[in-house]
């Protein structure tokens, strides 16, 4: 028999929120989460290095947006990130774990670089169109293979796409060796550095040497297209149903295997296009670090935004600003890159954690629940 004889409520209980929170409340919770993360980071900064955290935050902002050049670089990198995230979203929404964006970016980049090298005599407009087409195609092929194998033999797409990354990486090494200039440097260097053939042209006035305006236009166009595709099209509806339950999809007459292949081809193609953006629109060269882990970071962006293409814009910027800012504080205060990555980690942790409080609430002992 029990030794407990009086009612004792547990100290803290977790209970689910009834109904849906109004938008201002849920975004309020997320903002509080962000604010708290800055406070915790601040305490950590003081404890570890004894610098005024506000100064550090200032440096982050300054590092990312301090000058017009920095701002443009931040915008440029955010757009590349956004492009990858928008490409990954349909696959992940369908619960197809495409962790092969790295490879898809690289093959898109290789295809772009090849066009720049071998077709530079073509007129600029035609050349750019061809470059876009082949980068899309290259990424699509890289997506098709794991998609086809999954549909046909139910292979594990996570392992498959991961291994495709290594193939793409080796392929990149091969082409870097083939195209290296100067000979023996093991680097491709700026492709068409003098004539700028196959470089995305300036859209606005030439602020420094590039303004990356076309990057923004292309990526936002893709984002808008994917927003409509995911939310308004029949294909988008199929993706949403499959992601929720494959059985329901079959019940509704959706041909699941066909949708898998189609969606992963699209996903790969857009990641391939990101390779084009990275090569033609930003670095103008190709190397094994052209993808540089962005294929993985973009997964975080896609999930944080819950696959909403428009919300991904915000998270792309947030992550890139944090990244640029982290580099700035690392160099300014002589810190290692790891300290700044800790800060990024803490902020992400709080953002993810706030989702919990959007769905659940804590109740404390003794507090009467109000209706």
């Amino acid at each position, binding site marked *: *028999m*029990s030794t*407990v*004889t*009086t*009612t*004792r*409520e*547990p100290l803290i*209980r977790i*209970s*689910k*929120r*009834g*109904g*849906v929170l109004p938008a201002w409340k849920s975004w309020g919770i997320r903002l509080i989460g962000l604010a708290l993360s800055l406070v915790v980071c601040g305490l950590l900064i003081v404890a570890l290095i004894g610098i005024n955290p506000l100064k550090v935050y200032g440096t982050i902002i300054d590092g990312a947006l301090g000058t017009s050049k920095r701002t443009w670089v931040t915008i440029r990198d955010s757009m590349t990130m956004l492009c990858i995230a928008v490409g990954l979203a349909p696959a992940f929404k369908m619960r197809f774990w495409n962790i092969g964006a790295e490879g898809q970016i690289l093959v898109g980049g290789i295809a772009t670089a090849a066009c720049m090298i071998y077709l530079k005599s073509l007129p600029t407009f035609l050349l750019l169109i061809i470059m876009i087409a082949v980068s899309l195609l290259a990424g699509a092929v890289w997506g098709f293979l794991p998609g086809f194998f999954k549909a046909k033999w139910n292979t594990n797409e996570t392992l498959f796409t991961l291994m495709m990354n290594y193939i793409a990486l080796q392929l990149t090494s091969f082409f870097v060796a083939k195209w290296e200039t100067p000979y023996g440097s093991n680097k491709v260097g700026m492709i068409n550095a003098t004539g700028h053939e196959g470089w995305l042209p300036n859209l606005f006035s030439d602020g420094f040497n590039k303004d990356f305006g076309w990057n923004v236009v292309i990526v936002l166009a893709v984002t808008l297209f994917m927003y409509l595709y995911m939310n*308004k*099209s*029949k*294909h*988008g*509806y*199929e993706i*949403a*149903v499959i992601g*929720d*339950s494959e*059985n*329901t999809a*079959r*019940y*509704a*007459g*959706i*041909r699941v295997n066909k949708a898998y292949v189609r969606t992963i081809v699209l996903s790969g193609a857009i990641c391939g296009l990101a390779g084009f953006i990275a090569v033609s629109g930003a670095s103008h060269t190709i190397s094994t670090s052209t993808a540089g882990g962005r294929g993985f970071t973009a997964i975080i962006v896609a999930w944080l935004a819950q696959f909403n293409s428009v919300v991904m814009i915000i998270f792309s910027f947030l992550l890139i600003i944090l990244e640029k800012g982290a580099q700035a504080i690392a160099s300014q205060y002589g810190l290692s890159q790891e300290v700044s990555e800790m800060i990024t980690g803490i902020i992400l942790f709080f953002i993810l954690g706030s989702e919990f409080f959007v769905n659940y609430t804590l109740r404390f002992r003794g507090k009467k*629940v109000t*209706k």
Partner: protein
Amino acid sequence: MESVCAIKMENITKRFGSIVANKGINLELREGEILSLLGENGSGKTTLMNMLSGIYFPDEGQIYVHGKPVTIASPKDAFDNGIGMIHQHFKLVDVFTATENIVLGLEDEGKLDLKAASRKVKEICDKYGFDIDPDQKIYDMSVSQKQTVEIVKVLYRGADILILDEPTAVLTPQETDKLFAIMRAMKADGKSLIIITHKLHEVLDVSDRVAILRKGEYIGDVATKDANQQSLTDMMVGRSVSLNIDRPTPVNVKPRLVIENVTAYDELGVKRLDDVSFTINAGEVLGIAGVAGSGQKELLESIAGLYPVASGKITYFGPENDKPRELVGLDPMSIRKNGICMSFVPEDRLGMGLVGTMGMTGNMMLRSWRKGKGLFVNRKEPEELANRIWKDLEVVTPSTNFPVRRMSGGNVQKVLVGREIAQAPSVLMTAYAVRGLDINTSYTIYNLLTEQKMKGVAVVYVGEDLDVLLELCDRLVILCGGQVSGVVDARAITKEEVGLLMTQHRKEDAAE
């Protein structure tokens, strides 16, 4: 001396967000009685019992066990207080024996002595007349035996208050009788029992007293001897309800689907359908009876093109007397493209019939998304349909975009059934169409099905409540272990006869 109650719940309130699941409930379980807890789905029965078994913690109120105030904050607290709950879904390890499952999780001092445990299990079984072998593996057991293991498990732990959550849902009438005999034996031994059920005749059969909940509130209690089906229903629903199902004589009956020698295997190669043959007629309600898991799910999914058929034929005869079409080998999209409008309410609502993360509108689109030319989906018509069902079937939801997975089970079912009937189908298949619905809505659904039948639709009704099957259907197909053990006229057979067929294999029949 005033008798002390085994359990006394005083002023218990439990909220989930803004929903009040239990509101100021006072419930008493007297020593040595069987109490039925009766209420429609969503009336808060399970929530209330989960507070006794330590799964939820009440927001307000006090629980007394044998007169002493207690705190039950975890299932362990419940056990310490001698309360054991037998859940609807068994929590057993398949590859373990009965004894191993029973001692699992017990923290006894010293070495685990399985032999002694097995002996103790045997003693308990002998005492109450349980029919299980302590050393048998769970996967070798029937559903009713598994349930028995669950009961022995709580008795082994010394429970003297037992709560059974809808224990008869998975049993045949004969097994139910056996369970009730056991419950009476336990009562004779001084145990106190609560049984949750919504089958009225069972309430009248087994309990001493009935407590009724409605919409989270305690309505009252009556001695069983003073109650009858009608009076209990009225208390449960809050107004007078007619309990008769109108069953008009079928007109213009003709074969719609002819199923011949269908055999199907699951992914593991286990035979799920074994040489099944029968005819589904247009203008008739065909009932399919059987113990849960006898092949009902596989049968309906085979017809719908969702389950691979190994051999046999399923032939469709359209309403326009056009040429018969073979359905085996067609997927749902091909069936649709052949102009066959087949509605299907699957058993697994959120896992097959609906998309949990979407609202009503998104779920209406499951049937219409392919319609219309162009790349974009039409949301307007589904939206209208959603609004119509929302109103007509009184679905409780804040909006047509509120995710259906967050609705209550009954409302989810309304959305699904409403959509399927709105298809204007030529075949309407339903698996447990009223599971989770309150009595009133259940009768609405029965009437809707009958209405479809009179329109010349071939209606298939897979059910678990034999009384309803016998009242609603024109013919019954009885499944047992994947075989058809009988095709009978529902107007000319008794419940007991159906119960026998449910456990009797055709092969044995043939041997007679």
